[in-house]
């Protein structure tokens, strides 16, 4: 087989225009100026944008573009929080809410992690749990709140269970998928190298499912805060949600905003915890670092 050679793309004698790139070493420790410039661009990291928005908000309130009844200035909101603290209402409320979230989250994670591991490792576990969790997954968290109240009353139990429900479902789904998604070539390697079932689980399947577990944890924490808010806003005689409800009744918008702020801080803290866990537990993983 002889290929027909086409004429060269560039006629002989004609010089091709070549654009070129030059690569030089990246400074290992950037100069003080450069580091300061980086700080200047994003002085608070990912919280730079929220901080800028807060400043704009403050200015808009002072100038009078925003009505104090609809959206009080950030300083006013913080002051409302300070007042709540001085009246001795803030700390017990936060403690109550954190307690609910903590207990609910713990119950939800224990159920989600155990069911996820059993479902991921065993075919019979899959049949046992998967259908239930898939169905529960399609029911919005907020939609079961009325049922929870009918079943468990308006006490602590319904709140804790709602949070547990919110945490368990995403943990199960992600952990199940992560265990089933572990590279089968690694499983085959471990088996052929003579690793027993226990060792296969401990060294291959569970660590391999760790990235998926952390995704599940992120969702679980997020949904548990959501469940907390939903449960507390509908009925509570203490906690952050109770503060918000009471403030709404008396038209104290600044306290409403302060309550929302605490919820936001809870959500952000949860996210930071997962970030730290990822950095520690996934040190082995080569990952993309954006510039």
């Amino acid at each position, binding site marked *: 087989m002889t290929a027909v050679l086409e004429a060269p793309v560039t006629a002989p004698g004609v010089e091709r225009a070549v654009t070129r790139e030059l690569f030089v070493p990246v400074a290992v420790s950037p100069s003080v100026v450069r580091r300061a410039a980086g700080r200047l661009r994003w002085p608070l990291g990912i919280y730079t944008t929220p901080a800028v928005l807060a400043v704009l908000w403050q200015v808009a309130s002072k100038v009078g573009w925003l009505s104090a009844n609809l959206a009080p200035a950030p300083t006013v909101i913080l002051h409302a929080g300070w007042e709540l603290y001085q009246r001795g209402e803030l700390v017990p409320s936060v403690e109550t809410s954190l307690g609910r979230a903590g207990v609910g989250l713990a119950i939800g994670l224990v159920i989600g992690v155990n069911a996820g591991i059993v479902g991921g490792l065993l075919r019979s576990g899959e049949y046992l749990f998967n259908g239930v969790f898939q169905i529960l997954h399609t029911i919005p968290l907020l939609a079961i709140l009325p049922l929870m109240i009918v079943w468990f009353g308006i006490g602590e139990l319904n709140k804790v269970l709602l949070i547990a429900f919110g945490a368990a479902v995403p943990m199960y789904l992600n952990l199940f998928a992560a265990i089933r998604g572990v590279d089968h*070539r*690694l499983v*085959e*390697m*471990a*088996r*052929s*190298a*003579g*690793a*027993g079932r226990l*060792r296969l689980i401990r*060294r*291959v399947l569970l*660590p*391999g499912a*760790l990235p998926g577990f952390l995704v599940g944890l992120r969702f679980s924490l997020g949904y548990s805060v959501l469940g907390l808010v939903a449960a507390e806003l509908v009925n509570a005689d203490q906690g952050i949600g109770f503060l918000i409800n009471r403030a709404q009744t008396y038209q104290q918008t600044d306290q409403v905003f302060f309550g929302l702020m605490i919820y936001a801080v809870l959500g952000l803290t949860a996210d930071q915890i997962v970030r730290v866990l990822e950095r520690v537990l996934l*040190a*082995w*993983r*080569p990952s993309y670092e954006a510039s």
Partner: protein
Amino acid sequence: MTTTRNDARTTVEVDQVVRRFGDRTVIDGLDLTISGSEFVVLLGPSGCGKSTLLRLLAGLDRPDGGTVEVPTQRAIVFQGDRLLPWQKVWRNVTIGLDRAGAKERALDVLAEVGLADRANAWPKTLSGGEAQRVALARALVTEPDLVLLDEPFSALDAITRLHMHDLVQRLHQRHGAAMLLVTHDVAEAIALADRILVMNDGRIASSYDVGLSAEDRRSSQAREDLRGDLLADLGLAGRH
């Protein structure tokens, strides 16, 4: 060096083995015997059933007909390194080793493949050649009677591959395990084998005993003749 083939103990016995995928017969009545600590290279074009045969010997798949008899203590070196990215190098080596002193044993074998100083490294920091050497160490750490190598060096560059050939030969002499290496590289086959089997259409088409010295394996008339024969068997006559 052909001294490792002196004992008559049978290591592998494959009798009339058949393997089908759907209505396609990939291995069709194949016989194979490996004795003692022989180094056998299985050569063949891609898709001829080499890897399928290796998987049967490894016990990863079951035959559709015939029998396969292999030692209980056996290990595989796969085409890719298949290291667990979440375990340090030495933990990867001990995956199949469940006894006291496993770490010391792993460090010894890592030293044998020249990687003692990388024992605590993450796999993501290894080069391709280093990763494949860890895979070799993982295979040898349990002192298997049979080592199966499935095109283990095909993803490596030519120079690294030559170093790996020397290493595998040293390890073979030292550990005395029978080795079966699957490849489509004629030069690799000549460099390593006591016996070369050419596979075609699901059977062993021809067999060559390589009685050459290390010197003659690199360059000699006998080497060129053998190479010519092998290429002809592979349907590549007149390409040398």
